[in-house]
């Protein structure tokens, strides 16, 4: 205990409020690091930066088992998205991310903002997004909520992707009662950039201006529990935390404006405001560059009146970016963002001091050293035990069904195997005029031509949670191997994968065991196939009333087809052709 720190709680903070933000142990670490009690704004910043979502505190240790480099890898994990070389000075940039919980609460907006977020991760790095994919897991089709969730999620994915004008070219959809209380909505975006025009987030120089661009900041998605605390009690109903609402129209303008600014010599570094918006973007940019950052919150474009520093730092309003601009080039950004009818404001500067300093209405409301927030965030080696091995089944011991035709028909009619046309018909798969194969085509992977060339990207998402549940290690291996096969089956050279690791509560050793098993299996397959992991995302705590989802490490993979005329599919079969079975 840091008995030395007195008082233990800053003004306006109580033990209960502190506990709403961080665990008791984490609070002790904060006291020790600061030598004083954090105020509410600072506590809010710790809570989001040390959340599972931002800090990967339960998973980081194991994620380091993935192979992440290779000849074709330009940027691996650690950036907003993975970047691979596809020859001719071009790069493919891609990532997959979950938006599970928000999609369960508000399926349309949850799924839509998931798509918006993953697109920003990709265009932040200088890529024009060219394809979207989605991996969906819903509960039992007979469960009373399932229908409405499928409808809302599908409409939300389409509503966002169709409007921004990026084709949604494929995906996967499973139904299992294990997802009744926790659906999974994983979205993947793929973009293209020139290798000499790739942008990263790390701040490079002190005293460079920091620009805020995009939509205004509102009180969207601010953590519910903390809102109940005294400071936010007044105004009750009016100030209630709200679900983030996506605005694909603003995102479309933001894409065009950012790409236009990127073609000028103006940006030093750039980062989207994802979960924990202004906090995570400013902290990550400064700390990965080994610098500090100072912001004046009075200049943040605000959608609502009387927003507090706490609210601005924790808001999850969508369609916003932070840019560190080369000094003297602010006017270029202003011209471009005004042309696209977007907000642009200089809200601060980088600094040499390694601290996050925030001013609001003339007062310093936060002054924190960055290392403990970012680099030195807690990292847990959570206890785990391997999942109980389920013996393999000997097919000869199974009862042989009498009517194989009926079995085939019932398999084909099962929700997982049945046509997903109802879903993908709602996605614009053809916009950008480069889709050579999508959900509707007899092809194991989607195929998207590299605009203006004969090259094409092959893209697939795969995971069979049933296998992962039976044997996490083998299931993890299988997910990677299936993605590899789907790419090779269309004539592509597989290059790299992204992933979205969806699991239950990591504080339970058996769940942690599933996680470790799947990660190790995936890592083994990736090593064997020289198929590095270049980006990814972890979603834990997918459980309700102590029941966890089946372990679901979704894999998104990208390969290159050197000549689009060489692509393969399984359609166009003719009578009399010979079928060959290859492999074991």
């Amino acid at each position, binding site marked *: 205990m840091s008995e030395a720190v007195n008082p233990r709680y800053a003004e306006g903070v109580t033990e209960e409020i502190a506990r709403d933000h961080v665990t008791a142990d984490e609070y002790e670490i904060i006291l020790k690091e600061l030598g004083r009690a954090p105020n509410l704004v600072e506590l809010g910043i710790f809570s989001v930066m040390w959340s599972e979502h931002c800090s990967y505190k339960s998973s980081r240790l194991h994620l380091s088992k993935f192979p992440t480099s290779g000849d074709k890898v330009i940027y691996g994990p650690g950036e907003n998205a993975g970047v691979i070389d596809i020859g001719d000075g071009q790069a493919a940039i891609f990532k997959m991310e979950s938006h599970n919980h928000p999609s369960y*609460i*508000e399926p349309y*907006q949850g799924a839509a903002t998931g798509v918006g977020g993953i697109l920003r991760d990709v265009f932040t790095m200088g890529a024009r997004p060219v394809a979207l994919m989605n991996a969906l897991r819903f509960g039992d089709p007979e469960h009373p909520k399932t229908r409405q969730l499928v409808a809302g999620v599908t409409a939300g994915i389409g509503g966002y992707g169709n409007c921004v004008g990026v084709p949604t070219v494929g995906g996967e959809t499973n139904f299992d009662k294990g997802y009744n209380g926790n659906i999974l909505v994983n979205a993947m975006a793929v973009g293209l950039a020139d290798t000499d025009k790739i942008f990263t987030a790390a701040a490079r120089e002190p005293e460079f201006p920091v620009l805020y661009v995009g*939509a205004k900041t*509102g*009180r*969207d998605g601010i953590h519910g529990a903390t809102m109940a605390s005294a400071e936010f009690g007044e105004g009750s*109903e*009016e*100030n*209630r935390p*709200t*679900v*983030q*609402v996506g*605005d694909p*129209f*603003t995102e479309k303008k933001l894409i065009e404006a950012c790409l236009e600014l990127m073609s000028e010599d103006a940006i030093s570094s750039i980062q989207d405001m994802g979960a924990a918006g202004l906090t995570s973007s400013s902290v990550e940019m400064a700390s990965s560059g080994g610098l500090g950052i100072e912001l004046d919150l009075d200049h943040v474009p605000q*959608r*609502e009146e009387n927003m507090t520093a706490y609210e601005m730092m924790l808001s999850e*309003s*969508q369609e916003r970016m932070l840019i560190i601009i080369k000094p003297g080039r602010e006017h270029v950004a202003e011209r471009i963002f005004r042309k696209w*009818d977007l907000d642009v404001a200089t809200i601060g500067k980088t600094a040499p001091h390694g601290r996050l300093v925030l001013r609001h209405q003339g007062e310093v409301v936060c002054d924190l050293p960055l290392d403990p927030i970012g680099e030195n965030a807690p990292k847990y080696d959570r206890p785990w035990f391997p999942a109980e091995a389920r013996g393999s089944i000997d097919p000869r011991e199974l009862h042989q069904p009498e009517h194989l035709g009926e079995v085939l028909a019932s398999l084909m009619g099962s929700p997982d195997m049945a046509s997903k046309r109802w879903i993908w018909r709602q996605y614009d798969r053809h916009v950008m005029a480069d889709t050579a194969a999508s959900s509707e085509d007899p092809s194991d992977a989607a195929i998207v031509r590299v605009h203006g060339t004969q090259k094409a990207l092959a893209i697939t998402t795969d995971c069979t949670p049933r296998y992962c549940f039976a044997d996490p290690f083998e299931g993890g291996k299988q997910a990677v191997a299936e993605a590899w096969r789907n790419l090779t089956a269309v004539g592509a050279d597989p290059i790299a994968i992204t992933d979205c690791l969806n699991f239950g509560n990591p504080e339970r050793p058996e769940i942690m065991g599933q996680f470790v098993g799947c990660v190790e299996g995936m890592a083994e397959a990736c090593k064997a196939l020289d198929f590095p992991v270049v980006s990814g995302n972890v979603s834990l705590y997918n459980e309700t009333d102590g029941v966890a989802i089946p372990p679901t490490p979704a894999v998104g993979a990208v390969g290159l087809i050197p000549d689009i005329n060489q692509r393969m599919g399984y359609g166009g079969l003719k009578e009399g052709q010979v079928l060959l079975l290859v492999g074991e």
Partner: protein
Amino acid sequence: MKARIHVYLKPGVLDPQGQAVSNSLNHLGFDEVTGVRQGKLIEIDLNTADAEEAQQRVSEMCDKLLANPVIENYDIELSA
């Protein structure tokens, strides 16, 4: 009876449509417009004579289908 229902976004929820309409009105020279919120108007014909019953049933319809309680509020007006 007839019920007229207004469904509006809760305060604080982003209204991109309202925002776009507001900008467009300003561009068209309606400078006096300082904000726009867009909601839904739903008119229902009911085969009910009892106002009290109608009020209660229409509230139920709103809760079950017509409004999304996560982001929307509603009000109901009945007329004969």
